[in-house]
């Protein structure tokens, strides 16, 4: 399986080795920042293609990976589908539901496989939580709480801090939690949210979201792009016979560098190494689907649902009233 990567910034560079480990070979790289495309291409002996649309048409590319800022996802999905390429697309699938529909329709029409990287479904701790619930260890689940976030990301041209482009911490970060909640607990009934999007250009966004799920469960999600440093993930599941808690700060490794090492001195970096990174596992799942071995853990419809949940939270925060699905 020959892979062309569109968007060779942080995520493109991050995905490439995971895709290679899963059995893909990187053959083409494209990025408006030429050095990004060149350095990644050099690593894998791939070619640099200046025009990403042209990459989608290359006869020696079987699969296109789209790792660009969110607003460009839909156009590349449509183009790649038009040329019969299978598609890996970073989350969130698209910036608007209209884009989601267009992109999904294009993939369906072309009969290509479309996989959106909702990687939290592959995180070992989240799998363990889901398994314990399935095994009945907390009884009937009533309430769920998740927290994700830390420092505000910048991205090329600070696009993360442009709400129109990124959708803020809600659409870009805690969409992970929204997707996992739906994966683990079914469809939502309604959502209420508050956020600080008006401060996003100062490097501050913070989202506080409550879902009432169709089965009655209340799930609250907090997302931060408001911290001066650090990152944490918290999960709490309460049932009628027990509880599950997870705190990413309780990691097996914690390093603290003398001197700056690229970070402010004294910052503690927790790490939790595993043999198979969740990012590799999602690529392996996608590969298995392409090889006809199994259905994927994340369907294109799941990815649209995650965007729907994110946009509904954004709409609620704007209106300050709940939004029903």
């Amino acid at each position, binding site marked *: 399986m020959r892979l062309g990567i569109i968007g060779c910034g942080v995520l493109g560079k991050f995905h490439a080795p995971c895709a290679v480990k899963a059995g893909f070979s990187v053959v083409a790289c494209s990025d408006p920042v030429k050095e990004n495309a060149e350095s990644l291409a050099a690593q894998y002996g791939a070619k640099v293609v200046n025009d990403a649309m042209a990459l989608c048409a290359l006869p020696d590319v079987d699969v296109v990976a789209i790792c660009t800022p969110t607003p460009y996802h839909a156009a590349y999905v449509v183009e790649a589908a038009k040329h019969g390429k299978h598609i890996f697309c970073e989350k969130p699938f698209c910036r608007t539901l209209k884009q989601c529909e267009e992109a999904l329709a294009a993939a369906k029409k072309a009969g290509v496989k479309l996989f959106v990287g909702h990687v939290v479904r592959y995180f070992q701790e989240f799998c363990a939580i889901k398994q314990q619930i399935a095994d009945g260890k907390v009884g009937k689940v009533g309430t769920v709480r998740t*927290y994700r976030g830390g420092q505000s990301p910048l991205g090329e041209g600070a696009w993360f801090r442009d709400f129109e482009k990124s959708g803020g911490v809600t659409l870009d970060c805690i969409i992970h939690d929204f997707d996992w909640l739906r994966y683990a607990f079914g469809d939502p009934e309604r959502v209420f949210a508050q956020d600080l999007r008006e401060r996003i250009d100062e490097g501050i966004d913070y989202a506080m979201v409550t879902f009432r799920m169709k089965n009655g469960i*209340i799930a609250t999600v*907090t997302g931060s792009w408001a911290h001066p440093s650090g990152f944490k993930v918290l999960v709490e599941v309460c049932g009628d016979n027990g509880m599950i808690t997870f705190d990413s700060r309780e990691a097996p490794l914690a390093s603290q560098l003398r001197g700056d090492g690229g970070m402010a001195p004294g910052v503690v970096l927790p790490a939790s190494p595993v043999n198979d990174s969740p990012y590799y596992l999602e690529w392996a799942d996608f590969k298995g689907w392409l090889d006809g071995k199994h259905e994927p853990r994340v369907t294109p419809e799941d990815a649209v649902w995650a965007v729907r949940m994110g946009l509904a939270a954004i709409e609620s925060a704007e209106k300050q009233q709940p939004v029903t699905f």
Partner: protein
Amino acid sequence: MIKLGIMSFAHMHAYSYATAIAQVNGVELSAVWDDDVARGKAAAEQNGTKLIADLDAFLKSDIDGVIICSENVKHRPMVEAAARAKKWILCEKPLATTIEDARAMVELCKKEGVGLGTAFPCRHVPPLVAVKNDIADGKYGNIYAATCTNNGSYPGGWFADEALSGGGATMDHTVHVADVLRWMLGKEFTHVYCENGNLIRTGIGTDDFGALHLEMEGGVKIQHIASWNRSKSYPTWGDVTMEIIGEKGVVTVDAFNQKINLYNDDAMKAQWVGWGDNSDLGLVQDFADSIRERRDPAASGIDGLKAVEVTVAAYKSAKSNQRVAV
């Protein structure tokens, strides 16, 4: 010596207040009264004081002030009886289950010239006091948002009987944090949205979880979780936590996270043993000082009323699925 009486041991906090009274200098528990005479007698014996079974006789005794720890709906008649007897009053939270009751209690105490306080011990928890002082000193600049929790274990008994409690976890575990936020930020609540329900121990007859979205003056945005969702196997009773987002930084506070971990083979579960300061001592000390100084306690009846307004709005919102004004 300030002489205090406790009215009703229906709320378990009465026992910890009695213990605190014994530890604060210049204060004594001189009598107790309870509408459950057997419970009052046992509590009096346990705390080395006397039971005065007749309410009029209790209120005519030489006590200076009363701490009221009845079921929530009985707060109003007990506060009114004590106020008419010119006793200083510290009432367990929530001050009342309706705005009408809370307002009537505040007004009567004012008319009778007695101090009325609401038992909000969080105002005496050093980590929370430190955050309040840092905010006041401008350490975090303007405050934009906060995520808070007041989780707890299921208290059972009358707490789950709405005829006596007025409501469940949404009421029981919103008032502390509502008061802390007003006290820390010096702002009033303007709006509430709430999703709640009986989600953990189903069939208890009241809500045991509430997820609230609050707004304060100036547009400060707050998420708060009020729950009785800690399992029996959880290592402690619950928590009060806050993550506060400010202009100049972020502060997180886990108010009771001053603990050691205990692994005891009889309990067969991990336990957290707190070593932080006992906030009940501060509560009792302030109540005694308020009697000496003829003023309201630190958290007054008005503060109790403001917290009740938030819970009433929360239930209204949960019923209508609409954000409502406080």
